[in-house]
């Protein structure tokens, strides 16, 4: 997978109807990766991407930190435990939440030019 040029994240938030759950928010993302399988993310996600998933378990933060993922977009209106938010802040990982399904979110990102 080729590395995407950096894209500003903030303008994408209204498009995704996303709420920022953590204190931390990166300036840019370098493309997007979608998977609910942690090992798949470990195997294939590039550093700096926005990772979209329905998973809310704290391992999401561990995996994101390990792969230097920029931000995690949690879809389908799911919310992680507050303890997980603290961990994400500690690791410098941004967590975003959207009511959209992963499919809808992916469509919006594609339309926004992240391809």
């Amino acid at each position, binding site marked *: 997978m080729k590395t995407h040029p950096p894209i500003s994240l903030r303008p994408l938030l209204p498009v995704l109807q996303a709420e920022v759950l953590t204190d931390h928010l990166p300036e840019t993302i370098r493309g997007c990766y979608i998977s609910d399988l942690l090992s798949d993310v470990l195997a294939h996600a590039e550093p700096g991407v926005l990772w979209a998933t329905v*998973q809310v378990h704290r*391992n999401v933060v*561990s995996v994101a930190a390990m792969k230097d993922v920029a931000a995690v977009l949690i879809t389908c209106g799911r919310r992680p435990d507050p303890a997980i938010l603290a961990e994400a802040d500690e690791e410098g990982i941004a967590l975003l939440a959207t009511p959209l399904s992963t499919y809808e979110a992916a469509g919006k990102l594609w339309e926004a030019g992240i391809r």
Partner: protein
Amino acid sequence: MNPAPPVIPVARAGNARKVSVAQVLVYELRVRDAMSAPPVTAHPKTTLREIQHLMKTHRFSGVPITDDGTLLGLVSIEDIIRALDKGYINDVAEKHMTPNPVTLRDHYSLLRAVAEFDRHGFGRFPVLDTSNRLVGMITRGDITTCLMHHLEKRAEEALAHEAALLAQRAADEKAQRVVLRAPVRTGDYDSAGKISQRMRTILRERGIDPDIRRRAAVVAYEAETNIIIHSLGGEIVVTVEPERVIIEANDVGPGIENIEQAMQEGWSTAGRLPRELGFGAGMGLPNMKRCSDKFEIVSNSETGTRVRAEIHLRPAGAKPE
């Protein structure tokens, strides 16, 4: 006339001029370091017979004749032989001694002392200090003994220094080697990633390339989750060395039935709960193998599964962060 300085041979090794320790020592050491002191002396009125006994007792070949610390002459073994031969052994020393003998100063270098021995052919010299007081006697034997003694001391110092260096290096290497060891419990999904997080911190502190750090993290994380999901419990041992990190995952069972199958992407025996949490994609072992520079897995139903993965931290051509 000053004696011609003796030629000190200088060994050549390649282009470097090498001066032996013995050569350095003859410059550094002084006559006072080698002489025998205090000197055994005799008075001018002492008989040659008494001096002969003095020589026999102390195994000297020459006795300085002094009066109140001032050197007046020297009686040598040759003088005694002549006295016995000519029959005046009972005469007093002052009648037959060599008056005003050639002396050395106590501050002369041994190099100069050797030159004086060569120049005069004497077996011994009385040694005077700067105020012309007799302070000792010196022979070629004294010089040799002194050099041997100092060479031995230097050799011992060199050996001690070497031993200290080796001990220091061993201590440094030990300090650079960090072993992280943690038990991993079955089903403890909340703890997954703990040990790989600690390892990542160490690797970051050591300035390891981010790509290599990520690979090591993936291996450690997959190893941890494998034990959590599939085993009856075990432990993870991460050894960080200067050049590599070794990740070992050992569990107590139940063992992998078919390793070849387990190594295939997508093949998983994980249950419903881990799958819901995003585990059990059947990519753990293949991920570990792909991210490792060395990967071994041994498993049987009696002793459990042992995985050992090695990641090189500073491969040739890798750019530091």
